[in-house]
């Protein structure tokens, strides 16, 4: 006979069945029953200081490990605090399962204490969500939630569980067969389309492989590289796709888009073919979509059919998983080529090389200061040999990391691309380190972003999760300041974060971390070395950076990618 368990116990057991090793959460009234059986479970609970932090930790964990991240919160404010991380994970297709307590079934709809309509609020920012109405549903719902989060186009799934259901008894049974008649994500691409794609590639004189975050999510980086090499395809990687092909690879052109490099942006403008895999023609990549890649035919591979034709109608649509379809493309290309090499396309390759030589990303660190963020990033890369998982917040620093960090592996770049959530870096780094304890996890954060979620460093020091946070203190909301400088006639409004408050190293020490600071360019390397030598505690390093620096290249929002602004002199 199967044992009778409480709904709460069944929930924890179902999580164990999914192989969950860690959950990030904050307890409270409605979810209390679930916290009791957690005490007897091998699942680790990381107690965040804010549910937003818990949610981003789950996302950072999922980014770094490729597994589903789990976050737990109570009803009402606990659940509403999770909305930002859910919306964030939804935009970036990150597999997260959120479990929220709800007021008792009998109280739902009565404006009970800590009642919020979590199911309704979370609906538009989750891939799917559940309100459990009977404890016996728990094993099946948990199974489905993990399946939905991780398969097809990944994304967040929320399970809302009323308190009486957590307390109710049920007869334990492990999850049965899933019954999802409307959910059948395509895996393999249509063979005819694959063939058509190969023909377009063979005919193309100026192809560009446009690789997005879907490559990372599908664990398809090896296939991408093989296919790029086989077809001799120069490759751009979007903000979410950085690391999909090594930046040191001769076919890698780096990042396109609003703050991409000149060659990556221009290559798409001049291309006669975009081979798009796991990317979605985001407005930060395309600029004005009507002026984007005007000469190019498009092959679009995506697991989500709704992305195909949403912004740009492709000549060859291929619905399928990036890894599976790239595998098909590789096989088809090998067959098509036989013993011949791929077309050399020498003029195109020469043009691209020429742009790379004439328009490199560069910076000029004056040894007298102030410190440039690009310099810190380059020094950090040099001293770690690039062997780290890098996390960023949102703003200028994020763009500079993406530009200047040479990414060599997938799943080593964690940032909030779609939603652009300030405050992402610290908790996401904590989650990444919790999942990959043997990897060096560094966050490069803005002083504005840092102040949104820095309390999660308390979580990190208490829980023994030694992340390293590099705060680029330009004492301003730098990206906003840049837009005000460029588009609002230097009228600075509400961007000043003040020069000396907070005292970041002291704040770090107060949170149980090591706090360090560099004021001058000459101190940058030594302070990074000091930070890298600390292994038992989280470290926060403040770099006092140039408050007036701007990120270039830049394509102003909504502008044509033909008009890349290379520096202030171009405006």
């Amino acid at each position, binding site marked *: 006979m199967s044992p009778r368990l409480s709904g709460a116990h069944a929930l924890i057991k179902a999580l164990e069945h999914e192989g969950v090793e860690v959950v990030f959460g904050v307890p409270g009234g409605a979810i209390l029953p679930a916290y009791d059986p957690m005490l007897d479970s091998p699942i680790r609970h990381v107690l965040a200081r804010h549910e937003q932090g818990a949610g981003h930790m789950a996302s950072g964990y999922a980014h770094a490990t490729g597994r589903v991240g789990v976050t737990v919160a109570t009803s009402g404010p606990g659940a509403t605090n999770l909305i930002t991380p859910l919306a964030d994970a939804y935009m970036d297709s990150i597999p997260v399962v959120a479990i929220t307590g709800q007021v008792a079934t009998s109280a739902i709809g009565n404006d009970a204490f800590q009642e919020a309509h979590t*199911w*309704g609020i979370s*609906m*538009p920012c989750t*891939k*799917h969500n559940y*309100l459990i*109405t009977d404890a016996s549903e728990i094993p099946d719902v948990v199974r489905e939630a993990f399946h*939905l989060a991780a398969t*097809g*186009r990944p994304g967040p799934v929320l399970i809302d569980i009323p308190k009486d259901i957590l307390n109710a008894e049920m007869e334990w049974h492990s999850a049965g067969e899933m019954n*999802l*008649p*409307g*959910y*059948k*994500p*395509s895996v393999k691409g*249509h063979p005819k389309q694959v063939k058509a794609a190969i023909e377009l590639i063979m005919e193309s004189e100026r192809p560009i492989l446009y690789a997005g975050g879907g490559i990372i999510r599908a664990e398809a980086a090896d296939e991408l590289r093989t296919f790029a090499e086989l077809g001799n395809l120069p490759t751009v990687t979007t903000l979410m796709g950085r690391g999909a092909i090594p930046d040191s690879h001769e076919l890698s052109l780096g990042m396109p888009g609003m703050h991409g490099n000149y060659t990556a942006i221009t290559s798409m403008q001049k291309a006669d073919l975009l081979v798009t895999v796991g990317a979605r023609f985001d407005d930060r990549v395309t600029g004005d979509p009507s002026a984007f890649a005007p000469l190019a035919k498009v092959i679009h591979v*995506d*697991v*989500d*059919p*709704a992305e*195909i*034709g*949403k912004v740009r109608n492709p000549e060859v*649509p291929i*619905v399928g998983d990036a890894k599976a379809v790239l595998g098909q493309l590789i096989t088809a290309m090998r067959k098509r080529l036989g013993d011949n090499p791929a077309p050399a396309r020498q003029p195109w390759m020469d043009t691209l090389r020429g742009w790379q030589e004439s328009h490199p990303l560069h910076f000029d660190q004056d040894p007298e200061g102030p410190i440039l963020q690009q310099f810190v990033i380059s020094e950090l890369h040099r001293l770690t040999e690039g062997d780290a998982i890098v996390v960023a917040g949102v703003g200028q620093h994020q763009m500079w990391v993406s530009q200047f960090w040479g990414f060599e592996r997938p799943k080593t770049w964690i940032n909030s691309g779609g939603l652009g959530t300030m405050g992402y870096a610290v908790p996401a780094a904590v989650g990444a380190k919790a999942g990959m304890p043997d990897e060096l996890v560094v966050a490069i954060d803005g002083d504005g972003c840092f102040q949104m979620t820095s309390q999660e460093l308390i979580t990190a020091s208490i829980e023994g999760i030694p992340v390293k946070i590099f705060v680029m203190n330009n004492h301003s909301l730098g990206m906003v300041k840049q837009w005000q400088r460029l588009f609002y006639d230097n009228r600075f409004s509400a961007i000043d974060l003040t020069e000396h408050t907070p005292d970041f190293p002291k704040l770090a020490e107060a949170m149980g971390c090591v706090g360090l600071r560099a004021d001058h360019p000459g101190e940058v390397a030594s302070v990074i070395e000091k930070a890298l030598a600390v292994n038992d505690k989280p470290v926060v390093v403040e770099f006092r950076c140039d408050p007036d620096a701007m990120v270039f290249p830049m394509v102003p929002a909504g502008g044509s990618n033909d008009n890349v602004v290379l520096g202030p002199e171009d405006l």
Partner: protein
Amino acid sequence: MQHVIAVQVENKPGVLARISSMFARRGFNIHSLAVGPTADPSLSRMTVVIDGPEMEQIIKQLYKLVHTVKVTELSPNEAIEREIMLVRIAADPKKRGEMLDAASIFEARAVDVGANTLTFEVSGDPKRLADFLELMRPYGIVDLAKSGRIALPRAAKSKRAEPPQLRTA
């Protein structure tokens, strides 16, 4: 331009909210929406009339909802479309005779008679309802309720296969 889409969804709590929330979020304009059970108790059918030039993105977004089982766009020539309307019209006792005559042409039934009004029930394709309203407008329309359109594909002529590119992700 109006399009009619038949959506088969799992008969689960909240499924209507999911569909309408998705329409709102994506900025799609619903003209009318009718929901009801099907022969299979595990499924419901929604008939959605949508204003817009192009249905592909809408159909794909519908398929993305986990509870959506099947979406079919019904072209007017290949579908039977019906709607029911209750309309209350100001009815001067002297005019009732001619009003009832007109109504009979439309097979509209008088279902309620008040001191100063007549209430008709009319059903049929949307054009018939519109024509009837035009005819009654001069008397003065006091109140109006419409069911929203329901539709089924015509039997033999409907050969529209489900487009394979539109499946869920």
